[in-house]
């Protein structure tokens, strides 16, 4: 035998492994093509994502910065505290209009005092460079600290949206010439103020914490109420849709006898997935508001409606995942005397977890981004007051992030364009935070057997 091995230089039986025959080459080519298709599909998806995200971020990043103008003014007690007793309740009677006039009067003077030429530009125009929110800011500050009255204070006021737009590059001298809301002179003044350090751009926390603002004050519009509203609704959706959806899937997939009735439920659920979301709004209006008497515009109703809307997504994906668990696992558990219930909860469900979590991710993404059903239950609304803490807060009026996006996009002032994209960024970050746990869990549960 040794002998045999020694003299035997292996004589390849025709086909070598190293040289591919015609057919293998063809098959390999098709394999490569297939793989390429897959890679292309991924790349296409990612490219689409990148494109959409860059456009959103490109448009929206600037929403996180805001321009402020420095103004020095003396707070005239005679104007702002007619009673003279520094009682905030009394002082609250002074409207923002009066504060506005005060600021408009003080602003040009304040500029001149800082040595900035205001030639060729009227005082009204200068005043218009401030946001209409600025008086409200000032008023809040005065009311919180009435002793400021009579003193000369330094105040960073929100700049008007067009001035802000100019700093961010949205408004140009050329466009200002045609724009009836801003003049090149104002922009030139803004340039001069910036050089003198009287105009700065800061990170805009207010965008995240402030409530919405009217069309006259795009620069003050924020997402605070919407974020709270969305968070409340998502809490409800998560705590209702996930358990109910998983429970329903388990029943249908693991326990339900195969009969007409379960077929009916099955078809029903797939059909519910195809029901346009606005119809769920109609349902919510009819059942939760008109029949059950829950308040309109409240996260509780929104949450319930979105729950019903999300359920089919979760059920369909959970069922698909349960179906994919090999029967041998079930037999194994049943064989050691586990009940069906134990089999499902101990063995099948963990294996189906990735699919369930995917369904949850997709369902929540949909629930978080949906406006149409909210339209009918009164959540597509202008809400400025924050809802209180849960559970009471579930019944207070609130807005939602997609609603805010929608509202911003329908507004006339171009300054809302960046806000809309900014809101989308916040929404996506919100979604990502929500999904992170699910994604992490999904990776943990993923296994092959």
């Amino acid at each position: 035998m040794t002998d045999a091995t020694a003299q035997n230089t292996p004589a390849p039986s025709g086909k070598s492994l190293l040289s591919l025959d015609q057919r293998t080459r063809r098959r390999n080519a098709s394999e490569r093509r297939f793989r390429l298709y897959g890679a292309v599909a991924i790349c296409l998806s990612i490219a689409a994502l990148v494109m959409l995200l860059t456009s959103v971020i490109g448009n929206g990043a600037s929403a996180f910065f805001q321009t402020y103008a420095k103004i020095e003014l003396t707070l005239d007690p005679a104007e702002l505290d007619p009673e003279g007793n520094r009682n905030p309740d009394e002082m609250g009677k002074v409207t923002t209009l009066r504060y506005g006039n005060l600021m408009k009067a003080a602003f040009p003077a304040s500029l001149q005092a800082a040595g900035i030429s205001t030639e060729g530009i009227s005082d009204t125009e200068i005043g218009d460079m401030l946001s209409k929110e600025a008086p409200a800011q000032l008023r809040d500050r005065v009311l919180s600290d009435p002793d400021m009255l009579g003193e000369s204070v330094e105040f960073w006021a929100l700049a008007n949206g067009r001035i802000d737009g100019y700093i961010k590059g949205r408004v140009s001298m050329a466009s200002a010439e045609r724009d009836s809301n801003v003049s090149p002179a104002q922009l030139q003044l803004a340039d001069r103020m910036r050089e003198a350090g009287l105009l700065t751009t800061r990170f805009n926390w207010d965008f995240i914490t402030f409530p919405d603002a009217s069309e006259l004050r795009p620069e003050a519009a924020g997402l605070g109420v919407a974020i709270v509203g969305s968070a409340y609704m998502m809490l409800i959706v998560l705590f209702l849709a996930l358990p109910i959806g998983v429970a329903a899937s388990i029943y249908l997939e693991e326990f339900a006898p195969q009969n007409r009735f379960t077929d009916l439920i099955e078809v029903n659920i797939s059909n519910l997935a195809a029901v346009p979301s606005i119809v769920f709004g109609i349902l919510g209006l009819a059942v939760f508001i008109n029949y059950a008497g829950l308040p309109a515009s409240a996260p509780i109703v929104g949450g319930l409606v979105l729950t019903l809307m999300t359920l089919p997504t979760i059920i369909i994906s959970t069922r698909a995942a349960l179906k994919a668990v090999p029967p041998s696992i079930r037999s194994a558990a049943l064989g050691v005397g586990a009940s069906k219930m134990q089999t499902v909860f101990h063995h099948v469900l963990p294996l189906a977890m990735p699919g369930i979590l995917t369904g949850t991710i997709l369902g929540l993404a949909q629930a978080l981004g949906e406006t149409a059903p909210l339209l009918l239950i009164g959540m597509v609304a202008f809400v400025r007051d924050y809802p209180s803490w849960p559970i009471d807060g579930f019944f207070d009026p609130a807005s939602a992030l997609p609603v805010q996006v929608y509202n911003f996009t329908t507004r006339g002032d171009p300054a809302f364009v960046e806000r809309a994209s900014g809101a989308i960024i916040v929404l996506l970050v919100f979604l990502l935070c929500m999904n992170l746990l699910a994604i992490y869990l999904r990776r943990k549960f993923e296994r092959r057997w």
Partner: protein
Amino acid sequence: MYDMNRVENAVGQDEIKISARKVQVYYGDTHAIKDVDVDILDKTVTAFIGPSGCGKSTFLRCLNRMNDTIAAARVEGKIALDGEDIYDRRVDPVQLRAKVGMVFQKPNPFPKSIYDNVAYGPRIHGLARNKAELDEIVERSLRGAALWNEAKDRLQEPGTGLSGGQQQRLCIARAVATSPEVLLMDEPCSALDPIATGQVEELIEQLRQQFSVVIVTHSMQQAARVSQKTAFFHLGNLVEYGETDDIFTKPKDSRTESYISGRIG
């Protein structure tokens, strides 16, 4: 020892643990088990032999109602455990399966650790009062299934990462851990080497002291070695059932005879 066994055998064999009467199984239209009558005695090892595809596994699965899980399968006839009809509507199949354990033909460990695989049964049946007891059950079962030496250092590794034969022994250990009254074993040694086979056969012998064991095997030698009773299946029929010695030495049916004499391995 030998004597004691004989005495016990004598006692055990009087008691019928499972009795099956006129059992029919259909898979859709195919009639897989035809009119099988058999009595499985307590404290006895019963061997089912017969050519591949004759219905051994199918019949075995009837005995603890595992066929319930196959949508296409339909069982008729009467099977009684300790005199109680197991297909009675009031019977809880779960309790039944806790009493009648099963080792499947294809090893199917859970995608969990080796320890959890074995501990699962005792856990759900509340067989251990605490962790130490559970550890003990796991060790005893793994030892019984001759897997302890190989597995003791990797109890926390997944059971699916074992070799074929190891998986088979793991499944045996898993079934033994729940201490069933009847243990159904579908070719438990098919992937085992002679030594491991010997150890499992020893385990079967031990189990027989208290329980009833039904084993499907293709090895005549094994059947002869471990069983007291043998049933020969052919094309869905129970051709012959009797004392193992009788079946192997003086089969009554010609089919039995030709199957046994055609023996090769």
